[in-house]
């Protein structure tokens, strides 16, 4: 009996500890709940949750709670929302389930003269006509985070609707506060369907101990990661699962394309066909570089944050990531150990400053409150949470989020004194790079899937080929092998057709991806054989 009492006491103690330590006032019974789907990390969710609950209580006199849905990275969120909308459409319009109804979210149907069965057009019209919880609703109010391109695509599909902030807050949406574009990238949608909420800079996170052990310099440019010396040491992230990775790859591709165009003789001015050829060359060079980086990787992560952690622990030497992820890990290591273990390097001329947007979803069940949240995030008060030091009144309570506000008025000298990264200026960094949306913007999905199908899925063959090439003395010593290694799978000229193929339904899509993987595998096997033969 005594032992039972002891055990019971221990259990009670264990249960009491978290209840005693529970933060006070965390929940209000009867609070209205908004639903936000987001890939944001826990710290961001916690700080904005706390601040918004307080703001709503004090300013709106309303008790609110936030239901965060985190199905995973941006790829997962896109799939999750598509699934939710398809189910909702099926429920809301049983009378419209004619042939082609699944294309109710196909933006291609909006073009004048688009060919489609009548069922598709009727479904599309019905979908776009209503924006109410009892019409077609995903059950989610806001989508926050994951990059402009996925949200721009969702906006065109009709998943996102105008939250009305551009009209409601005209003083915010001016070049002196929140510019519409920065380094060629959209910061907010002029139609008000998505709004940049923070800036992200893509770059390279590097483990200092690992580079010292390898005897290599800290990589400063994307090209550096393609060197054979990194073989088996890099972290790489699946771009179909992480928008951060997809965007980083896109910057890499843009840089290669830009360099190819800049290499053209300036006078006489290059013809359109010469420019097109240069762009195609740049695209191809970029994919070869991505293959080399992929072949240098030690493993594939599903999320950029996991890959950054591998670097912080010294398990991987370097990885492509977003600035705030690397800064958060670096800060944690520094605080706990007093040592600098991780550095972040933005490749100058190889990265833009991109906005990380927030958007209102069609059929939002708690529309008014969702708009209030959106407004709070973009307000000066909300923006301060991104980079103020924790504990300062008006700043985050516990965590330094180390992200960059989108409002220029958050970068005054007075504001900088409160910031964790006072020297970072996204507006200055943006001047070194111009993002050409027309070059790669339409192929966001294609690029991610191409990387996955030709670099990640056939990774065993890729690594074997690359190691054989390195063992034979490098690409210059075995040119035929390297040419096979670099075999184009989808040349730039074929990108529009490939894009259409990916959008052509699940079966077509899966068949296309399979075909790319098989062709890449064959190319790498041949490269390996040629390298082994010294050719």
């Amino acid at each position, binding site marked *: 009996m005594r032992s039972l009492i002891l055990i019971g006491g221990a259990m009670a103690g264990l249960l009491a500890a978290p209840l005693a330590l529970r933060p006070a006032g965390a929940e209000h019974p009867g609070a209205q709940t908004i639903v936000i789907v987001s890939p944001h990390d826990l710290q961001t969710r916690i700080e904005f949750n706390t601040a918004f609950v307080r703001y709503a209580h004090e300013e709106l006199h309303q008790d609110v709670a936030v239901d965060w*849905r985190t199905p995973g990275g941006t790829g997962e969120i896109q799939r999750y929302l*598509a699934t939710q909308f398809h189910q909702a459409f099926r429920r809301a319009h049983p009378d419209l389930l004619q042939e082609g109804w699944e294309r109710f979210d196909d933006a291609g149907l909006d073009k004048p003269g688009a060919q489609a069965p009548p069922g598709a057009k009727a479904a599309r019209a019905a979908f776009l006509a209503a924006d109410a919880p009892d019409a077609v609703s995903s059950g989610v109010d806001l989508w926050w985070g994951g990059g402009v391109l996925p949200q721009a695509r969702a906006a065109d599909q009709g998943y996102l609707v105008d939250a009305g902030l551009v009209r409601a807050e005209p003083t915010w949406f001016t070049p002196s506060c929140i510019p519409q574009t920065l380094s060629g990238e959209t910061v907010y949608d002029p139609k008000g369907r998505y709004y940049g909420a923070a800036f992200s800079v893509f770059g390279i996170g590097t483990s200092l101990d690992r580079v010292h052990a390898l005897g290599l310099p800290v990589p400063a440019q994307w090209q550096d990661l393609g060197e054979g010396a990194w073989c088996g040491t890099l972290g790489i992230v699946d771009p179909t699962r992480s928008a951060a990775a997809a965007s980083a790859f896109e910057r890499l591709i843009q840089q290669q394309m830009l360099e190819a165009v800049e290499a053209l003789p300036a006078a006489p001015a290059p013809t359109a066909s010469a420019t097109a050829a240069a762009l195609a060359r740049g695209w191809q060079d970029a994919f070869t570089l991505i293959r080399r980086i992929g072949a240098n990787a030690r493993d594939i992560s599903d999320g950029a944050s996991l890959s950054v952690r591998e670097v912080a622990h010294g398990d991987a030497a370097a990885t492509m990531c977003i600035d705030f*992820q690397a800064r958060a890990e670096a*800060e944690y290591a520094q605080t706990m150990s007093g040592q600098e273990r991780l550095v972040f390097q933005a490749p100058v001329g190889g990265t833009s400053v991109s906005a990380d947007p927030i958007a209102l979803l069609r059929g939002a069940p708690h529309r008014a409150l969702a708009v209030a949240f959106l407004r709070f995030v973009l307000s000066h008060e909300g923006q301060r949470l991104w980079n103020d030091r924790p504990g300062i009144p008006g700043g985050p309570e516990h965590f330094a989020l180390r992200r960059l506000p989108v409002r220029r008025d958050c970068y005054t000298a007075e504001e900088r004194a409160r910031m964790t990264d006072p020297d970072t200026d996204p507006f200055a960094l943006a001047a070194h790079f111009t993002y050409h949306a027309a070059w790669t913007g339409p192929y966001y999905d294609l690029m991610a899937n191409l990387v996955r199908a030709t670099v990640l899925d056939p990774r065993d063959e890729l690594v074997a080929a690359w190691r054989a090439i390195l063992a034979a003395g490098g690409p210059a010593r075995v040119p035929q092998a390297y040419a096979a290694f670099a075999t184009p799978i989808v040349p730039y000229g074929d990108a529009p057709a490939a894009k259409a193929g990916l959008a052509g339904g699940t079966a077509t899509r899966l068949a296309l991806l399979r075909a790319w993987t098989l062709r890449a595998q064959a190319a790498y096997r041949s490269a390996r054989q040629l390298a082994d033969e010294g050719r």
Partner: protein
Amino acid sequence: MAARSGSFGGWVGMGLVALLLAVFLAGPLLVVLTQGLSPVVLHAALANPVYREGLANAFLVATVTTALALVIAVPLAWLSSRYRFRGQRLLEAVLLAPLVLPPFVGALGIYQLLGEYGIVNSLLAHLGGRLPGPDWMGNHRFAIVCAVEALGLYPILYLLTVAAFRRLDASLIEAAQASGASWTQVAWRIVLPLARPALFSGGVLVFVWSFTELGTPLMLGYTRITPVQVWMGLNELAANRVPYALVVVMLLSATAIYLLGRWLFAGRYDAQIDRSSHGAEQVLRGGAALAAAAPYVLVAGLAVLPHLVVLLVGLTKDWYGTVLPRGWTWMHVQEALSHPQVVPGILNSLRYSLAATALALAIGTFIAWVGVRWRPWGWRALDAAAMVPLAVPGIIFAFGYLGLGVAIGHGLDPTKNPAPLLIIAYSIRRLPQVVRAVAAGLAQTPVVLEEAAAVAGASRARSLARITFPLIGASLAAAALLTFSASMLEVSDSMVLAMVRSSWPITRVIFDLLNALGSGPAIACAFAGWAMLFLICCLAGAAVLLGRRLTSLFRS
């Protein structure tokens, strides 16, 4: 056993329980089959080289894991069945720890152990190597997954094999030795062949469980394997039914393996086993005892080590490039237990586990009572059905529940409120243990007491309440504690069904914490450490209540 005729109430109960099992046991399996058993979807799944590789890897992991588990379990089982030495009971208990320690949590510790600047490499550096050492996780992930799974699953084989070895007729071995057979000849020609049914049934269980294990490969980042691919496909189920097809392939493979096992080994060797005579146990002392204890310590140490590391990481300031942690702190524990995600997670898990325990006890006690005391028509089918969850892997059930919940809708749709489905899923998963525990308790309680009560005019309800339940109280309490503790850290159902954040149970919260930047993993470890301590308390309680009968609950 008295066969008291069943009353009307008894039959109503039978009907209700049968209906419940039909919906929540057969239902999920049917859903999986109907969703995934379409030639188009199966083709889409199997034509993709990535999914094919996933299946091949799942088979390879299962094969290697089973082989490793056999290598670990059989020699230990032999030691346990033939020798006695001081401290052996304690070591045997520690050896069973992996049955209750979630491999999911242990995987957290593996990164600390095997990282480039982890414990093993730091130790190697001390012994003359240098940091960073070998990249274990980068180059040997497959082997690590297999080793971790084998160290989590060997107890099943160990328990079955010990029982089989103890049943061996010692005179056979003595006769062989007298005829000059060597030790290896005895092992290969007599012991192993006679124990083959036990080895095979244990091997099949280990094979199927490792074939379908989600938590370990997911946590160790081994993603090219079917269970993880299925989990990753969850978010696109409406548009893409490939995950269901993969689950069907897993289900069919598992069934095929069971049938093969049955067909090959059912009852073939029983005739040669003398149930009445036990092999004499040799008592070891001094050096021999120490030598015999060494393998126990080694295996139990390896199995518990990752969990121990998790406990330490939760209390550590920094652990990078050193064998032992550098500096201690309560910060992570405090942060973990005051975390806005953690308290709701604990409360959710408590709610679900308590409800699941009550449900499992109600159904399980009824099934056990029917099987031991009443035995009407169909009792065997009911008893067999209650054992099905032992054989069907968690992820298959979880997927079936998901489909079932969405199909039934109303209160059971997990995309709206996962709680009811989670409670049902947890309770059905633990039904076998509850039925076994309560049946054992009932079988040991003399039926004459109940008959005497009936003769004295007590109603059945009164005799149950005043005589039967008090007498089997310890069994009921132990079954309750085991169901409760297993539900608190359940993985598959929690990961698949907890689709709404506010309803996340502990394991889902740990997984989320792990992905958080900065202190995330340390907080996850601190929280996991708390959860393990809680689990240990539950089990200690069960052990006190049940005494040595505790381990019998894990035998299937």
